[in-house]
């Protein structure tokens, strides 16, 4: 019921405000405010105080009630002001893997002479995550995104709110700024990586033996193969690190969708993702062959992203976006 109401109001606000194009600041006409549960309880307390004050004819109790009543109204203004004219600079989310939580980074700034406290953002029913925006400064907040299916995750609106100070009121605004997050397939599968290729130039045996040149350690990134994690270091208390090698022989691999007939479509995509992630982290060159699309052998983040994006959208029409 609450969810339904919220969606309806958000939809109404969208019709009213239209789509947002960052950077923009929150105008007073788009900031809504309502008392919180605590605010309601506080109001009930004030009513009780007023009745008691009237009943006893106590001037002190009456004044106290009026003072706290005024305090509540001031709090409403302060809460509203805390969100007013905050600049919504940008919101972006790096591609994420299916089944794993993602992260959305929202950047705020303020050109006013006072700091903003507890500016909170929620997306797709995530909990509110807050940040403080310094006076004439900038800050960002990382909103967790729920695990999702392969394809594209569409964030159609953001809920930006604040209950500062006193948590008696919550002022909020909806940001209608559709963000499409690419959701790569889940890296999964245990088939050995195809290593032969037409014009191979390095000795194959060396790669299999893992005799690539040791390059060093780097922090674990989403999608790295567990086989490359420096488990020994981890056991000693170090953070998750990944061993990096450079392929000596500039190994060239071809990952072909049609070469995996024994798997269903999703499993094939997951296996291909696994290989791409592994190959990329080892610095190998690889090519991807999908039905109707081919990515020439290459390496690097751009190539990896292109390949994985192709896997993400494989077989999905634009309309069937995962929501």
């Amino acid at each position, binding site marked *: 019921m609450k969810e339904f109401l919220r969606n309806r109001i958000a939809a109404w606000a969208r019709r009213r405000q239209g789509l947002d194009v960052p950077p923009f600041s929150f105008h007073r006409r788009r900031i809504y405010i309502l008392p919180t549960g*605590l605010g309601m*309880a*506080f109001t009930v*307390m004030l009513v009780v*105080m007023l*009745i*008691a*004050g*009237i*009943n*006893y*004819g*106590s*001037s*002190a*109790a*009456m*004044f*106290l009630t*009026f*003072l*706290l*009543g*005024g*305090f509540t*109204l*001031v*709090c409403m*203004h*302060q809460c*509203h*002001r805390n969100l*007013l*004219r905050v600049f919504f600079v940008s919101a972006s989310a790096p591609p994420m893997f299916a089944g794993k939580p993602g992260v959305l980074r929202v950047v705020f700034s303020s*050109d*006013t*002479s*006072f700091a903003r*406290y*507890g500016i909170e953002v929620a997306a797709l029913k995530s909990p509110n995550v*807050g940040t*403080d925006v310094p*006076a*004439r400064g900038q800050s960002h907040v990382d909103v967790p995104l729920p695990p999702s299916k392969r394809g594209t995750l569409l964030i159609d609106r953001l809920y930006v709110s604040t*209950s*500062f*100070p*006193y*948590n008696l009121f919550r002022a909020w605004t909806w940001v209608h700024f559709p963000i499409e997050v690419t959701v790569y397939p889940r890296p999964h599968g245990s088939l050995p990586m195809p290593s032969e290729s037409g014009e191979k130039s390095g000795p194959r045996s060396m790669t299999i033996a893992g005799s690539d040149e040791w390059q060093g350690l780097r922090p674990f990134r989403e999608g790295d193969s567990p086989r490359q994690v420096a488990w020994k270091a981890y056991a000693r208390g170090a953070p998750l690190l990944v061993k990096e090698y450079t392929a000596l022989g500039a190994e060239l691999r071809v990952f072909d969708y049609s070469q995996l007939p024994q798997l269903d479509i999703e499993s094939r995509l997951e296996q291909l993702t696994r290989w791409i992630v592994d190959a990329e982290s080892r610095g190998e060159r690889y090519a991807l062959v999908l039905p109707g699309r081919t990515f020439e052998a290459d390496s690097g983040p751009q190539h990896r992203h292109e390949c994985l994006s192709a896997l993400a959208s494989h077989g999905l029409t634009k309309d069937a976006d995962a929501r």
Partner: protein
Amino acid sequence: MRGKDGESLAPLIWTSTALVCGVLLHIDRLPLWTSATAALWVGWRFASELRSVRLPSSFAKVGVTLAMIVAVLVQFRTLNGLAAGTALLVVMGSLKLLETHSMRDRSIVIGASLFLLLAACLDRQSMLRAGLYLIHAWVCCTALAVTTRGRVAITNSGAAKLSARSLGLAVPLALVMFLFFPRVVGGFWTLPQTGAATTGLSETMSPGSISELGESGEPAFRVHFEGTPPPREQLYWRGPVLHDFDGYTWRQAPGQAYVKRPVTYIGQPYRYRVTLEPSGNRWWFALDTVVQSPDRRKVQLTFDNQLVARDPVNTTISYEAVSHTETREEGPIPVVARRVDTRLPEGRNSRSVELARSMRAAAESDERYVADVLNMFRTGGFEYTLTPPLLDLDSVDDFIFNTRKGFCGHYASAFVTMMRAGGVPARVVTGYHGGEWNRIRQYFLVRQSDAHAWAEVWLEGRGWARFDPTASAAPQRLTNALASLIPEAGSASERLLRDIPWLFDLRQRWDALNDWWNERVVKFNLETQLDLMRLLGFESPDWRVLGYALSAGLVLWMLIIGWQVARGARPAPVDRLAAAYQKLCAKLARAGIPREPHVGPQAYATTIRAERPDLATDAGVLLSTYTQLRFGNEISEADRAEAVRAFERAVRSFRPSRAK
């Protein structure tokens, strides 16, 4: 400050502070065990945070909670009423502190603290306490800010400043609401009030049992007269009237002893308003013979002209009354009254009775007899003192024949005994006499130390007549304050106040302020409100006018607050130097030499020199000033602001002529 698990303790500390402050507001009226247990729970909670002390299990907590409720019930015989409710709040609020782990829990404790504040407001509202109440409200609001801040990076002092600002902005609204919110006459219900302290006069008087009279300078009541007040020696403030004597102790008559008969008032009536401090007693004090009850629903005028209220006076009350200082009652005294007021205990004070009989026999009339007895007190070697010796059970005999030292109670008791023994109806009247004239606000302040006892005697053809035997023994007692009569009276601080004029003056001012507070703030009611509206120019104000005033004030406040709060939300001031430079360039452009966007100020100056030599000097100075201010670093930050302003002025007065 951080607890043993590294979490910030600030929310807990502030919440506890709010609660402890709430308890402190009531500390003098709470049963000791409630404050002690509250301290225990607070201490326990902090012990568990700082050391490895375990908190009680939830089972134990339920048990303790029930035990506490029962204890409050046993103590007060009720859970209803202000005193019991306060104790319950203290006990439950502090128990809740044992399990405050979330923001919600802490908010509940802060709520309990605010309710303690409410109870304090309902209980007592003197000016000094009002200051404490404001501080407490601020502590509670700060606690709320700290406890709800979550991960927000606002500091504790920041939260304290914030809540001070929020409350400060709320004050104007509170004032508007306070002045114009229509007051209801009478309450909806009354709660039993218990636990109020009792001060002032008591229902009985045993002069022989007191060896030192209390010298409390506490105010008992204040009186504003309409018109000229009566002379000082007429200021007898009537309280309990005592009829029954057992030879040692005087008591009130049980019930209505006899019927009050109409009297003729002599002389001018005095109209006045009394503001009575809470005493826990039921007497409303009035000047001598009051014409009628100030408020028939609340207070009754008895047969012996006492004002006895239905409820004890637990809050400051004020009432208006009309009194006369002299009356006449024709006809004989009713038989019952004569019997009641000539009764003496059998076989007690026999020497005094003997003396009285012989004196009465020697006098030709009752009037003569009264004068003789008063004369005896004047000339018989009696001494007025506040530290009389204790008396034996035949207290009057002991006083008249042995000690001859005493204060008003001794004289009144002895005088009335003598009257009764001589067959003249007489009664003891207790109350206050005199008062300190406050010249700042023109009123009499009657203190507890002005307590007095005198006598009333029935004289044929005159009715009840007032006589003050103390005045015979110590005539100055009537015209001067007690303090000036007996130099050693009163504490050292009292004497100090008396002897230093400016200190005395300061005390008068302070009391005038308290009087103003009681009259204007504590007793603010519908009537005062309507008076205020008349003062504001409304012909015949009613609650609707109040409503208009209230709404107008509310709207005005909302506008001001909205403006005040949102003021900071406007964009930060632009770079004034840049703005002035823009203006300068615009002026030069109008004069025919626009600056290309890529041209810097120095190059621009060169261009001007080449194209418009007539402007070169003025423009050159301005541009080099700008260059200095913008890029130079030899000017200090403080001087810079002034220099920028000077530059602005220079640009404003710079008027380049157009190209020919």
